[in-house]
């Protein structure tokens, strides 16, 4: 079996989730450094499209087809099927995206196998037969390196740590029928899937995020955030205050009890930068803020801050960006 494994997550449309292309790129680089084999695994009712896509990144992909993956919450089905494929006594490491589903798979798989798990990798090297994993902790104030004490483990990888790059050759897809034995986990049924407007791509995967805070004043004011996100081709984020006020759904919240993001650009409008928000975004490559208050905490850690009224600066910025994109 392979030394390194990559979990391929599947979108509702049946394609490969973007995070999985990144995780595959991450693990492939590590496998090359280690001289180890790397393979992917996709579990879905119909894994064919996602498995074929994952095979553009990896030399070998197992496609496990299991109707239960559509009828039950996906993560526990995936974890049980993957646990059945891995050989616990050999040297094996599993790499998973650090999104909601990936975290659920990692947590249940770790318990099923008794493996260790390292959370939110931002980098990794190979040493003494295993990965040495870099992680950002304490809301980005400290970087730690950790390793597994044994020959197995699971690593969750933060979105936007690497750029997804296909390998240039197409790997082999092996179709695996799910074993007919019952799943161990008591049955949870999906009885409905509700799509709400305004919740598009997962915000933690966005390259550009335009986020609004209390300073936006209301859902009307928040339209400025949406327009700027649109012209920049980015996603809309928010502080907890904006979510609590009902201007934007909780799924877009960035910070301690919301999402942790690492986009190329974080454009913060009317956001003071309180610690609970800062821990969710301070590892962004570039932070630009517009704030009326020169003493707001965000003015201390942004790369560029415009001191001014965001309802004057925002529209001017929108006009400038629109003129530029023609």
């Amino acid at each position, binding site marked *: 079996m392979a030394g390194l494994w990559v979990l391929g997550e599947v979108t509702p449309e049946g394609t490969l989730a973007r995070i999985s292309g990144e995780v595959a790129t991450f693990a492939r680089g590590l496998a090359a450094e280690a001289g180890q084999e790397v393979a992917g695994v996709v579990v879905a009712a119909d894994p064919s499209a996602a498995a074929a896509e994952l095979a553009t990144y990896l030399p070998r992909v197992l496609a496990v087809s299991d109707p239960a993956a559509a009828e039950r919450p996906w993560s526990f089905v995936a974890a049980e099927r993957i646990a059945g494929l891995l050989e616990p006594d050999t040297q094996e490491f599993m790499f998973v995206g650090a999104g909601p589903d990936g975290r659920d798979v990692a947590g249940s798989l770790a318990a099923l196998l008794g493996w260790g798990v390292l959370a939110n990798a931002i980098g990794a090297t190979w040493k003494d037969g295993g990965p040495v994993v870099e992680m950002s902790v304490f809301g980005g104030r400290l970087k730690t390196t950790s390793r597994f004490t044994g020959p197995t483990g699971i690593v969750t990888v933060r979105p936007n740590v690497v750029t997804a790059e296909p390998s240039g050759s197409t790997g082999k897809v092996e179709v695996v029928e799910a074993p007919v034995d019952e799943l161990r*986990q008591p049955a949870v049924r999906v009885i409905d899937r509700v799509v709400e407007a305004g919740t598009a791509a997962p915000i933690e995967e966005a390259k550009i995020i335009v986020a609004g805070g209390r300073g936006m004043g209301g859902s009307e004011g928040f339209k400025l955030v949406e327009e700027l996100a649109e012209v920049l081709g980015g996603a809309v984020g928010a502080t907890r205050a904006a979510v609590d006020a009902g201007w934007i759904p909780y*799924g877009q919240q960035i910070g301690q*009890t919301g999402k942790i993001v690492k986009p190329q650009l974080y454009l913060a409008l009317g956001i003071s930068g309180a610690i609970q928000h800062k821990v969710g975004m301070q590892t962004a490559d570039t932070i630009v803020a517009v704030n009326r208050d020169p003493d707001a905490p965000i003015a201390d850690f942004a790369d560029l801050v415009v001191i001014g009224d965001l309802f004057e600066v925002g529209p001017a910025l929108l006009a400038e960006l629109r003129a530029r994109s023609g």
Partner: protein
Amino acid sequence: MHIVVLVKPVPDTASSGERLRPDNRLDRAAVPAVVNANDEYALEAALKLVEAHGGEVTVLTMAPSGATDTIRKALAMGATRGVLVTDEALAGSDIRSTVLVLAAALAGLEFDLVLAGVDTSDGQGGFVGPGVAVKAELPYLSYAAKIEPKPDDRLVTVRRISPTGYDVLESPMPALIACTQALGEPRYPSLKGIMAARSKEIVTKSLADLGLEPEGVGGAVATTEVVGSEAPPARAATRVVREAPDVAAREVVAFLAERRIV
């Protein structure tokens, strides 16, 4: 309904003082401990459920013995009793040990639901909920934005937040549910609640009480170890722009172009 809420004391992020000890473990003495924020949402959801359906809320914590302070806060919010699993042998526990211990502690409690925060502000892993569900052989429902039990049918319905909206999940009870902020703002302890909490019971349990061998858990058998730490590279100094809106906008766009973002 009997509900158990998993509560973790975490270093207060607002202190910005979290640090590691020389042995690379969390320096618990450096910063005050608070109830993990997502666990407060779980606790609030549990309190609302027992207000609607009757029953009791038990707070379950695995932590050093000083954690009675954070448990007391949960009791002041309205929980009925606390259970603290504490043992010298648990120092340096990894996720595997934590999951084993919490699952063993649940085996000695009666419950219809177990609620937990979807992750903790210190570890940020989100692995303990699904792990405990596996070990305790409970159905697992995560990223909950709404919880509706039907006690007579022994069923619970949960809205699970998805990237595009939400899924409606139905499960038999007992079940373990990982809770999010979308469940609603946690209450502040009232003065009456704080007074009442002083006389509420906190049961302390050791590994022996749970029937676990000390050799099977804790730092000595941890599956992961921190081998080093360093401060991340400091961000460059902030460029401050105070020009008129149109000039400022041009400066921002030029800055983004410099960095090849636009």
